[in-house]
């Protein structure tokens, strides 16, 4: 269970190479024909053909791949059958990598963990990473090469490229255009540079629906040269986040939230806690966690930033217009917190803010002396020069100057801003090709569609923001036909035969040999440490094996903690006057579960309750309850949103249901991206596409008109009541309450009485403590639990009927009054009560207590009376009302391929059976087997539950109560430790640390 296992990370499977002029396998028919017949029905001849085919199928399925494979007769070194292996790999989101360890059971990846040696992971993961394995097996993935919608082959595609290449060579790439997403892959960057050399007139454009453009422009405005912002919250002593969801989803969620929470983790006697102050338009996980939160319109942030700058005396700052009383109070408090933290202060601004606000933030940080300490300005990536934006490319396409367009990995037809007529321009390009994981909106409009391989199937590489490179290793040979963007780019450059493996290997071999493997600096210069080959053993094979095993390539990162000098003056942010309260301001946000829509076919993520609203399978618009009441509607009512003042011209209205969320600024309507997809076996038709409202000049906010349609839909929610009704469910306390000493558990006498005798204590008494101060509601634990424990997906209809299957849920309660609302989030797994109310209820003894204090459920014995859940005060048990996992799966999740995602150590539950959190009993068993082999006992830290392992902020601790020195024992002595519904006498093993807040404003006023 440790990263050490990754040392066996030699690739055992390599992706199949496509060879021109040779069919991919001994299939008697083309794939296309099979599906076409399946669609159009069978005649007698095809029935006979299929009879023959089905006889030949087993043989075909058993054929060996082209490359060398090693049979299990000669087992790979270090492999124990039944024991999982871990391989280091990486996952790239918007060009920033997170190092991961993929768990593989006999060559079948089933689970993703963080790579402890990787700075963007530190052993943890986010929800996207956890859900990766489901996408790998997704039967809805693209698996066919298509030409004009008809089935074709990759060979035919390559031949078409070869034919076109002759022309490009002559015209030096005139008319050739590439459109890519943000990628951190050094090899890809190199291939693109090669192409730019070969075809100097080639257009290279980059497009991301969720970009960092404002941030980049902000750096340029403040420092006069390009650069990238790199936040280092782990160094900070106070956080002020202006419209920045620093703890929210994103490529660096794990690193940033770990940094913030580490500065806010408090224990007995703690007197310091970095305050977190957030001003934001829509209640996000960050705002809910904050000590001080201001709900304010996105357009007011600039004024707020100016006010803070003025209060801090930032040179050149000028007091902007009038602030409301709340805004004044917030900026006072923020300025005070920042001033106190001084050089360790961190003021951050979200991407949605205009460049001037970003620039002002840099000035504030510089003034405080924290620029370079808590925030670095990194040099731009080599690739960032010579890039076109989507609008420029689209203009070129529209005027006919683009003849060949290759779209790699992005889906601009769906996600391009509404004013960029990409779809129309696409029709003017004679040769278009789209490489993507799914057949999507863009695939439909392109001449060629080529399926892309999943990151767990292909070789690649990736980089963190600081340039630390990792190799992306395949865990399994491709499950469906697919191709790597690397080999496609190589083919464009004339190398049609190269596999991604060869390309990546060759790139790193070259860099190793020339000593240029480093290099996150400006173009041309060598790496800061001279590359990975220098100083180490000169053998590339050793270097390569080390790199694969460790998951990072040392010497590739650039130094942080630097920032260039500010320019003398930059434009001060202008903030519009208080917008008229009659119209709404729509703000656009990435979706915490599907991001920009790229994860929308992942059923785990679709069914992941959104951090605040607990909505699943949809993207309702978040509106303040008072606004909802003013509109005279209720949750689920469909509203029609149009661009203000558009007078019904081109922009079509967006129909979207609303959900009342306290803490949304009045007059703000929060819209998340990524929904309303027209493609995807799971994603199709779910939610509303807010794209029509989003234009280049209003990427993140715009004034809109909202009209009530009168229709309504039933939202799919997993939590309906967010009020605690005055009960102490999530305890909250100020930092000052921790001043006291740790409790002595031995002298505590408030243990509730019981009639039942205590179970005898054994050498292992498992317990979990969850720190609610550290919980940021990111829900990585929920998906981790789902992946680890084979928790089925039930679909939106079942969710609407209240049949959520997650073993671990995060309850979110609103606290505080409406404007200054905060959230208290409480992860609720099974409490494993010592006096479990479920156990005496079960008539057949399926719910029983084991010798290590676990409350276990014996699936074979369970007859499904549900009495246990009826009597569970925490309602943590989950019932298989249908055969969600075997026979009645949602959508295409019953496909045999998807069963491969199951963890072989965990039973797949049948219909009619109750299930629940087991404290990952299979991991405890694994640790016990390991301990017996060592002839020892299970030590602290040898059992890590799936939720604990995933948690980016390490809010979950798990361990043995019988071990005096265990972390859970220590945490149980904390003054802010408590058990949920303690008064019922259930004596839970899962307990909590109260949510501690550091409300500096109030404390000062009070004092």
């Amino acid at each position, binding site marked *: 269970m440790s990263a050490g296992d990754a040392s066996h990370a030699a690739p055992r499977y390599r992706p199949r190479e496509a060879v021109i002029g040779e069919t991919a396998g001994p299939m008697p028919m083309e794939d296309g024909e099979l599906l076409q017949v399946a669609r159009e029905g069978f005649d007698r001849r095809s029935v006979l053909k299929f009879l023959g085919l089905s006889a030949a199928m087993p043989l075909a399925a058993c054929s060996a791949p082209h490359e060398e494979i090693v049979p299990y007769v000669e087992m790979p070194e270090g492999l124990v059958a039944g024991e999982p292996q871990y391989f280091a790999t990486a996952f790239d989101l918007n060009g920033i990598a997170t190092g991961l360890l993929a768990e593989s059971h006999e060559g079948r990846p089933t689970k993703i963990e963080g790579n402890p040696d990787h700075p963007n992971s530190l052993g943890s993961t986010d929800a996207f990473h956890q859900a990766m394995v489901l996408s790998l097996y997704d039967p809805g993935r693209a698996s066919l090469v298509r030409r004009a919608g008809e089935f074709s082959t990759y060979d035919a595609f390559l031949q078409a490229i070869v034919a076109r290449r002759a022309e490009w060579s002559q015209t030096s790439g005139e008319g050739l255009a590439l459109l890519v997403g943000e990628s951190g892959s050094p090899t890809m960057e190199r291939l693109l540079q090669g192409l730019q050399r070969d075809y100097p007139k080639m257009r290279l454009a980059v497009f991301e629906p969720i970009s960092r453009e404002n941030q980049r422009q902000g750096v340029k405005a403040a420092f006069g040269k390009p650069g990238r912002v790199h936040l280092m919250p782990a160094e900070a002593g106070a956080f002020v986040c202006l419209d920045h969801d620093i703890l929210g989803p994103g490529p660096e969620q794990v690193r940033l939230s770990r940094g913030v929470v580490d500065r806010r983790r408090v224990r007995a006697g703690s007197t310091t806690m970095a305050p977190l102050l957030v001003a934001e338009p829509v209640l996000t996980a960050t705002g809910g966690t904050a000590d001080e939160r201001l709900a304010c319109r996105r357009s007011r942030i600039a004024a707020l930033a100016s006010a803070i700058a003025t209060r801090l005396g930032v040179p050149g700052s000028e007091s902007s217009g009038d602030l409301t009383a709340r805004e004044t109070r917030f900026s006072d408090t923020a300025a005070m917190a920042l001033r106190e933290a001084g050089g360790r202060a961190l003021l951050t601004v979200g991407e949605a803010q205009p460049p001037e606000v970003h620039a002002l933030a840099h000035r504030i940080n510089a003034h405080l002396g924290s620029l370079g300490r808590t925030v670095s300005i990194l040099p731009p990536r080599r690739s960032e020069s010579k890039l076109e934006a989507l609008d420029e490319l689209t203009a070129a396409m529209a005027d006919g100057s683009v003849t060949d367009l290759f779209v790699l990995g992005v889906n601009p037809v769906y996600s391009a801003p509404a004013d960029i007529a990409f779809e129309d321009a696409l029709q003017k390009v004679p040769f278009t090709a789209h490489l993507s994981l799914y057949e999507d909106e863009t695939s439909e409009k392109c001449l060629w569609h080529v399926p892309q391989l999943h990151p767990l199937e292909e070789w690649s590489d990736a980089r963190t923001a600081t340039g630390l490179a990792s190799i992306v290793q395949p865990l399994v040979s491709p499950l469906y036909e697919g191709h790597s963007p690397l080999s496609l780019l190589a083919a464009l450059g004339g190398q049609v035969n190269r596999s991604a493996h060869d390309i990546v290997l060759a790139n790193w071999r070259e860099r190793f040999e020339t000593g240029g493997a480093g290099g996150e600096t400006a173009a041309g210069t060598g790496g800061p440490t001279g590359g990975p080959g220098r100083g180490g053993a000169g053998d590339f094979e050793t270097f390569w094996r080390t790199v694969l095993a460790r998951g990072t390539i040392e010497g590739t990162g650039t130094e942080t903690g630097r920032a260039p000098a500010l320019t003398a003056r930059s434009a001060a942010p202008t903030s519009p006057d208080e917008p008229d309260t009659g119209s709404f301001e729509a703000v656009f946000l990435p979706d915490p579960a599907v991001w920009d829509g790229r994860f929308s076919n992942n059923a785990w993520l679709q069914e992941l309750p959104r951090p605040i609203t607990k909505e699943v399978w949809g993207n309702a618009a978040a509106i303040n309850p008072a606004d909802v009441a003013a509109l005279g509607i209720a949750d689920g009512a469909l509203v029609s949103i149009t661009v203000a003042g558009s007078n019904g011209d081109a922009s079509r209205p967006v129909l979207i249901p609303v959900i009342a969320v306290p803490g949304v600024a009045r007059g703000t309507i929060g819209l998340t991206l990524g929904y309303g997809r027209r493609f995807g076996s799971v994603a199709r038709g779910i939610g509303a596409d807010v794209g029509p409202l989003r234009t280049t000049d209003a990427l993140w906010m715009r004034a809109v008109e909202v009209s009530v349609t009168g229709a309504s839909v039933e939202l799919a929610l997993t939590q*309906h009541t967010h009020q605690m009704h005055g009960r102490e*469910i999530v305890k909250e306390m100020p930092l000052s309450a921790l001043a006291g000493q740790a409790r002595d558990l031995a002298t505590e006498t408030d243990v509730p009485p019981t009639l039942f005798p205590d179970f005898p204590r054994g050498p292992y008494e498992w317990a979990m403590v969850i720190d609610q101060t550290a919980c940021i509601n990111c829900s990585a634990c929920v998906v981790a639990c789902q992946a680890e424990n084979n928790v089925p997906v039930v679909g939106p209809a079942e969710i609407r009927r209240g049949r959520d299957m997650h073993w671990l849920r995060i309850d979110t309660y609103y606290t505080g009054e409406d404007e200054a609302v905060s959230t208290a989030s409480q992860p609720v797994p099974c409490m494993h009560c010592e006096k479990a109310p479920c156990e005496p*209820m079960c008539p057949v003894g399926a719910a029983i207590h084991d010798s290590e204090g676990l409350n276990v459920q014996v699936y074979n014995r369970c007859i499904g009376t549900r009495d246990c859940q009826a009597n569970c005060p925490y309602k943590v048990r989950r019932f298989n009302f249908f055969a969600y996992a075997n026979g009645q799966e949602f959508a295409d999740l019953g496909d045999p391929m998807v069963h491969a995602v199951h963890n072989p150590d965990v039973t797949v539950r049948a219909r009619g059976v109750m299930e629940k959190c087991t404290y990952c009993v299979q991991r405890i068993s694994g640790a016990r087997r390991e301990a017996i082999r060592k002839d020892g006992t299970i030590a602290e830290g040898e059992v890590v539950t799936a939720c604990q392992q995933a948690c980016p902020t390490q809010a979950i601790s798990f361990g043995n109560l019988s071990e005096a020195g265990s972390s859970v024992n220590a945490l149980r002595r904390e003054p802010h430790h408590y058990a949920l519904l303690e008064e019922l006498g259930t004596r839970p093993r899962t307990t909590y640390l109260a949510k501690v807040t550091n409300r500096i404003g109030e404390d000062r006023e009070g004092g």
Partner: protein
Amino acid sequence: MSDASLSGRELIAEHGRTRDGLMPAEMGYRSITDEVAGAVFARPTRLWMALVGVSFLGVVLLFVSIWVLLAEGVGVWGINSDVVWGYAVANYVWWIGIGNAGTLISSMLLLTRQKWRASINRYAEAMTLFAASIAGLFPLLHVGRPWLVHFMTPYPNTMDLWPQWRSPLVWDMFAIACYILFSLLFWYTGLIPDLATLRDRAKTRFVKVAYGLFALGWTGSSRQWRAFDAYYYAMAALGVPLVISIHSVVGLDYAATLMPGWQETIFPPYFVVGAMFSGFAMVVTLTIPIRWGLGLEAIITRNHLDAMAKIMLFGGLVMTFSYSFEWFNAWYTGNEVDRAHVVAQFTGQYWWLYWLMLACNGAVPQLFWFRLCRRNLVIIFIAGVLINLGMWLERILINMNTLSHGFLPSTDSTYVPTFWDWSLFLGSFGLFCFLFFLFAKVIPTASIHEIRELAHKEGAAR
């Protein structure tokens, strides 16, 4: 015996009634037999055929519902992760409650020498038997894997596994099993002399043999009557604790938990009285059509209904008391969750069902303070139906209110029944009616021998 040819109605017209009004003043043994057995041997009427047909449709609906349930899973119902108990449990409790009245009438009234029970005990017992059997069906269907319910029984197995004896469900299973067995035996025992009468009156060989087999060679000798009486009274004495235990145990299913609204010591007696209440309401609801349909007005008189109405009034008062005790307790204990539960009952999403239930169970029985209402067939009938509705609402609300509003507000949820929830309930009602109509045609609906005994004691028969 000169009046042998006259019907009960004619006899009343001629001779008036006995002093307590329970039967005609002059009614020979033969008239009684004619009156009751006649209904069995008469040709089936069109109405009867139609009723059997309609109720058979209900039986079909029941079996279709069960088929769909077994094929798809309990997910076809409206239950969810929080409200895990739905109509199946509520219907079970309701049917068991109905099944209580027959035994109460038979045994408790027998032991307390309430002579008016004689003419209604037979079909009340039949009602008990059918209702209890249907009730027994629901727990089987309620569980997720009905094919494994034998796990609940203590049978020898290689794993040495026994039921989990602390579970109220195990107690419940034994209670229902005992009760159904007892009801069957008690009912059958009381039937034996009447089966012999039917055997003796049968006109065809087949019918004679069929009744004869079940009559167990009853000849009506003094020896037999002595043994019969001793056995029957002993059974009745057994029945009283059983009828108390069965519904007490059902109450314990709830009371043994820690959930707000369930964990109340009042539950066992409250459930017993509730059962008696709904049982009597059902007897009344059945009596009025039966005495009309089978022409038994002479034997089942308004005095019977009057007596039953008084019991319903008593039941209604106890129920009202129990409800108010619940409210008082929630207030008195100061427990915020219990208090929130009571508030949710009155104002939560099921508020109108709760108010309707209070009206049916608390207000409607108050009519029976008035003699006029106790003797008005229409009022009694409507009141009986309303009380049954109220008691059924009480059963579903016990499940829904507690499970929809638990300890953690995050788990609040709403139960919305589906078509298959309703179809199973209606189907069970169809089965009940179907069995009852068959019973009315095959077996004497009133106890011939006991009415004869009554006639003897009343001095009506000489």
